[in-house]
């Protein structure tokens, strides 16, 4: 019981790190980015490439994955995504699906279609006994790291000047510009950080979720559920939604394996029936 709960929390935390960038770009900036998983793909592949080909330590691979994905995010935002902030949702959908198809084929071409293996360092293997349940050390590591990330993000968004600039830019880009806020720069930084976190999530999750070229499509629906169920208030909603989703998914797959994969959709449908705007809708 404790084990399942904890696995669910770890899974949910992982989803949060993967999807929180999307909850800002999609939830706050209202840009439908179905290609968010591509950044996770970049992170996962960079980490596994560094580890398996160059023998870099796992702990160094994580920041490398973050930086690589953030760099890709920053460049693609500057060159591609920025043009589409004002486009219709249909255009955004088509464009980002196109990006997903291209990156899947490109990764398959360069790295091959097989799953990437990440061998965990010995200090992260094994299990510990807590509250009568046996918990994987790696899960513990994920929860701790993702918890720190979540707290840092919340502080960044609520407690810093950058955060208030971002919230202003999201609420009304024109007025924010008028006040002298460099909206484009703020969006670019936000996009890069969000992509970097997705990359970090991809590297962290390669062992738990599996990492192959089809990752962006396989987890697309999870990302969307996190954002949709979480609502558009910011990352707190996404955090709660990720935990809910993670626990429901793991518990469902464990207790009722026959209907396992339906649980998350059932949760999603239930939430959307009760609250069509998500759990934490912004007051309008």
């Amino acid at each position, binding site marked *: 019981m404790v084990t399942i709960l904890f696995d669910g929390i770890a899974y949910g935390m992982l989803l949060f790190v993967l999807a929180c960038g999307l909850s800002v770009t*999609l939830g706050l900036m209202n840009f*439908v980015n179905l290609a968010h998983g591509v950044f996770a793909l970049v992170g996962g592949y960079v980490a596994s490439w560094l580890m398996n080909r160059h023998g870099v330590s796992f702990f160094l691979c994580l920041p490398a994955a973050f930086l690589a994905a953030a760099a890709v995010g920053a460049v693609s935002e500057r060159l*591609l995504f920025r*043009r*589409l902030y004002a*486009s219709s*949702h*249909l*255009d955004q*959908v*088509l*464009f980002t*699906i*196109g*990006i*997903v*198809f*291209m*990156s*899947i*084929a*490109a990764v*398959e*071409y360069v790295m091959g279609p097989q799953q990437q293996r990440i061998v965990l360092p010995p200090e992260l293997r094994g299990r510990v006994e807590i509250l009568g349940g046996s918990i994987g050390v790696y899960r513990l590591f994920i929860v701790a790291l993702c918890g720190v990330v979540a707290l840092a993000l919340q502080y960044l968004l609520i407690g810093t000047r950058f955060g208030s600039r971002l919230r202003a830019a999201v609420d009304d880009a024109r007025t924010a510009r008028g006040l002298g806020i460099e909206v484009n720069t703020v969006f670019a930084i936000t996009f890069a950080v969000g992509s970097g976190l997705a990359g970090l999530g991809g590297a962290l999750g390669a062992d738990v979720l599996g990492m192959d070229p089809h990752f962006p*499509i396989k987890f*697309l*629906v999870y990302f*969307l*559920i996190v*954002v*949709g169920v979480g609502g558009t208030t910011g990352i707190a909603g996404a955090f709660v939604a990720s935990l809910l989703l993670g626990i429901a998914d793991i518990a469902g797959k464990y207790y009722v394996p*026959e209907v396992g*994969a*339906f649980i998350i*959709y059932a949760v*999603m*449908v239930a939430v*959307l*029936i009760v609250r*069509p*705007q998500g759990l934490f809708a912004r007051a309008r």
Partner: protein
Amino acid sequence: MTAPASAPLSARSALSRGAVPPLLEWAAWAAAVACVFVLPSKLLLLNEIAILALFALSLDLILGYAGIVSLGHGAFFGVGAYAAGLLAKHGFGDPVTGLFAAAGAAALVGFVTSFLVLRGSDLTKLMVTLGVAMMLFEAANRLDWITGGADGLQGVVMKPVLGLWDFDLFGRTAYLYSLGTLFILFMLARRIVHSPFGLSLRAVKGNALRAGALGIVPGRRLVAIYTLSAAYAGVAGGLTAQTTQFVSLDVLDFTRSADVLLVLVIGGAGNLYGGLVGAGIFRLMQTWLSGITPQYWQFWIGLLLVVIVLVGHERLTRGLPRLAAAALRRLRGKADAPGSTRP
């Protein structure tokens, strides 16, 4: 939809304009039939194009006329395919009955899910349509004692179409059967979108609040068109199941929903022809690309999507007709007032 700035038209003439097929279109249908004799070796491919065109037409009904962006339209295609396939497998091999069953099953799923889909914003719609499609995929995968799971549905045996024409190996009957279905449903769709109902849909798409003020109940209209569109997609799925006599899990795959979106965008949404033209271009391109790079053709499809968006699909699909119209005007020496030319 922007109304033309020219003289005001009466409601009746505005409705009937476009409700009658132009001569060029009859020529196109005739050419499609003539393909049976001209290209007898390509009939299987042509059959696929006709089915894809019908599928894209079904998406056009909701995307082009009601403004609903769906990422899971493949769900209805899949439901129709399984309905027709299962019916034929269990001894009811009459194709036309199968199509009605496929349409009915898909319409039922469409009707039930429409209440979920039509709540909330564009984002919620995307998510719910995708979620429904994924859920059905998972269901078909799990219920392998009904659907055959990952192995696909085997043993679909079809009776002759209308008791007269047997399905042959070269796809001749299959193509004509699909083309005939497409023709009937296309004409029906044209009647529907040029009816007062179709106009009210466009009003809802333009501005749901104002449409409501005119006495249109947006919710009900959208449920109706969503259900109809699901039925159309179901027929397309049913045709696939019947003409290939096999149903595999990838009828419900995500890429199918994405592909049909691309097909419609290539051809242009909101004018019924878009799906037909797009289906032809898409399938030919796909055949050509997968001939060059069997494994990585998706890359080029993705690139095409990106380019289409960056160039602007409106400019691509409306540009040509507008150029032609401008040339015609110049020939007649009736230049428009400068204010009416849009960028």
